[in-house]
C-alpha cells in the first residue's frame, strides 16, 4: 500500500518544494530586497501545491519502461518507483514551464500559467510586506524614538548586513541612506513631532527592506 502511495506523494512534495525555492530565489533576485519567508504565504503554498499536483498526475503517466515522453523525460526510465517519484518531482518544472508555442514573442502554454502564478505570489507578498512593515512600526516606533543614537546604530547594522551583497546593490542602498539623511528634519529632535516620526519610520523601513527583520535581532527591546 505504502509503496504505491509514497512515490507519487514524493513527486508532489519535491515539486512543491522546488516551486517554493524557485519563487523565493526569483523574488529575491528581481525585487532586490530581503524576501519574507515564502512558506508563510498561503498563496505561495497554494501555488506550490498546484504544481505538486501536476507532478503527481505526471507520475501516474510513468511506469519506468520509457514508452512515453513523460516517462523518458521526467521519470528518466527509472524502474524503482521511489527514484521515479524523486525524479518526476525534481524535473516537473520542465514540463510545467514548457512553451507549447510562441505568438509574437509571448509565451503560450505552461510557462504562461507558471509566470502568472509567480506574479500572483509576488503581488501578494508585496502587500504582506507593506503590512508587516506597518505593524512593525506600530509596535516599535515609540521605542525607536526613545533609543539614543538610533539612526547611526541602525545604519551601522544595515551596512553590516549588506556587506556581502554585490557592490551595485550596496551603492543602491547607500544612495537611499544619503537621500534620507538629507531629508532629516531641520528642527530640534522631538519624539512627538510628526516629521521626526515620519523620518524614523522611513529609516526603519529602509533597514527592513534591505536587511530584513533580522537587522533588529540584537535589539532586545524591539519585537
Amino acid at each position: 500500500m505504502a509503496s504505491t502511495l509514497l512515490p507519487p506523494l514524493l513527486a508532489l512534495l519535491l515539486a512543491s518544494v522546488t516551486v517554493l525555492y524557485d519563487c523565493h530565489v526569483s523574488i529575491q533576485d528581481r525585487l532586490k530586497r530581503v524576501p519574507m519567508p515564502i512558506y508563510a504565504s498561503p498563496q505561495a503554498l497554494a501555488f506550490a501545491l498546484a504544481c505538486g499536483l501536476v507532478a503527481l498526475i505526471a507520475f501516474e503517466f510513468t511506469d519506468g519502461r520509457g514508452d512515453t515522453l513523460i516517462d523518458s523525460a521526467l521519470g528518466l526510465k527509472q524502474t524503482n518507483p521511489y527514484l521515479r517519484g524523486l525524479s518526476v518531482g525534481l524535473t516537473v518544472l520542465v514540463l510545467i514551464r514548457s512553451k507549447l508555442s510562441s505568438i509574437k514573442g509571448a509565451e503560450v502554454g505552461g510557462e504562461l500559467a507558471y509566470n502568472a502564478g509567480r506574479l500572483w505570489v509576488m503581488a501578494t507578498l508585496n502587500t504582506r510586506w507593506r503590512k508587516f512593515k506597518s505593524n512593525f512600526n506600530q509596535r516599535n516606533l515609540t521605542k525607536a524614538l526613545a533609543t539614543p543614537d538610533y539612526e547611526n546604530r541602525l545604519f551601522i547594522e544595515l551596512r553590516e548586513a549588506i556587506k556581502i551583497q554585490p557592490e551595485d546593490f550596496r551603492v543602491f542602498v547607500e544612495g537611499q541612506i544619503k537621500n534620507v539623511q538629507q531629508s532629516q528634519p531641520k528642527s530640534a529632535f522631538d519624539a512627538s513631532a510628526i516629521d521626526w516620526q515620519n523620518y524614523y519610520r522611513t529609516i526603519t523601513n529602509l533597514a527592513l527592506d534591505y536587511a530584513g527583520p533580522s537587522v533588529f535581532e540584537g535589539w532586545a527591546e524591539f519585537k
Partner: protein
Amino acid sequence: MSVNLLDLIQSSGPIALNELNMRSSEAPEELLRRLEELRQRGDIIVTGPKSSNLMDLSPEEVSQLSDTVVELSRSSLKRVFAS
C-alpha cells in the same frame, strides 16, 4: 545621490509618497513629474488621497502624504519577471 526610481519602488513594495520622497534622489516637483510619467506609461499605480492629481501637490504635501501609496503595476511586475 542618484537612485533609480523604479528600482526603489520595485524593491520597497508599496511605498507611501512621503517616504518615497525621502528615499529618492529627486526634488519633490521632479519626483511628481516622474511619477506622473510612469503612471501614464502604466508602470506604476498610485492610490489614496490626492492620488488622481499628483501634479497639483505642493512639496509640503508630498512630504506629509503617508496615505498616498505608490506601487508597481501588474504589467510592470510582469516585466520584472520577464527580464
